[in-house]
């Protein structure tokens, strides 16, 4: 692989891992908030 491409891939990978996980956590928090609201209003 082209060395330039390789070292551009690395920070991209780290950023993708971090933001992917943050996004997943955010989605879970939103879903849980919605479920809690629904359960409490029942």
């Amino acid at each position: 692989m082209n060395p330039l491409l390789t070292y551009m891939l690395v920070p991209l990978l780290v950023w993708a891992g971090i933001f992917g996980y943050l996004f997943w956590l955010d989605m879970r928090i939103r879903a849980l908030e919605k479920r809690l609201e629904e359960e409490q209003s029942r």
Partner: protein
Amino acid sequence: MKTYNVAGKVLIGVWIAAVTAAAFLWLPPAQGFRSPETARIVVFHVPCAILTFVAFLVNAFYSWQYLRSRNPLTDSKANAAAELGMLFAILATATGSLFAMEQWGSAWNWDPRETSIVMLMLVYAAYFVLRGAVEEKSKRARLSAAYALLAFPAMVFLIWILPRIVESLHPTNTLFTRSGLDPTYRVTLWSFFAGLTAVFVWMFRLRVQVEQMESRLQQHRQAVMEPLLTGEQG
């Protein structure tokens, strides 16, 4: 308070973006590497590897705290730390493989450090399997805390001892000695580590929040179900 939170998150993003840009624009290609340009990978790979250790250390600390106090919050924190440890272990392995491909000609060389991180991931994968296998909350917390405390010495051995007693492609003691790294590399590496640590704290707090919300939901359901069940019995 919310403004400070948002400002903090923006600052973390800007900091990491600036360090990433510095790694490309400011760092010179490093001599002594097969591919001097790709030496910059070290700046991203090493902080991920250090944070893997930090996360599992935090996991062991909160597991010990749980066994002492039986506070469910400490169990949530231990679980959050283990999950983050796994995330950073995966990132360290992936970035390391790309570096190995350029530096040593193959993405995987069964180097002691490569082997030990795979073993480490298996040890902590078993931690998640254990947590998933036990339904009762306090029993799950107790068992996983005990397992985490048993996994901790294995983790120290795999990260700090094994790669030093067996011949390895990875250099040792380069981070804490003056002759180990070029000053520009050292500054960039530790700056990225600082940014990544801030992200770690942010993710840790969010993960604990998820656990707390899940248990609140469970408590609410139990509170609703209990009168119905006792009503049926009566």
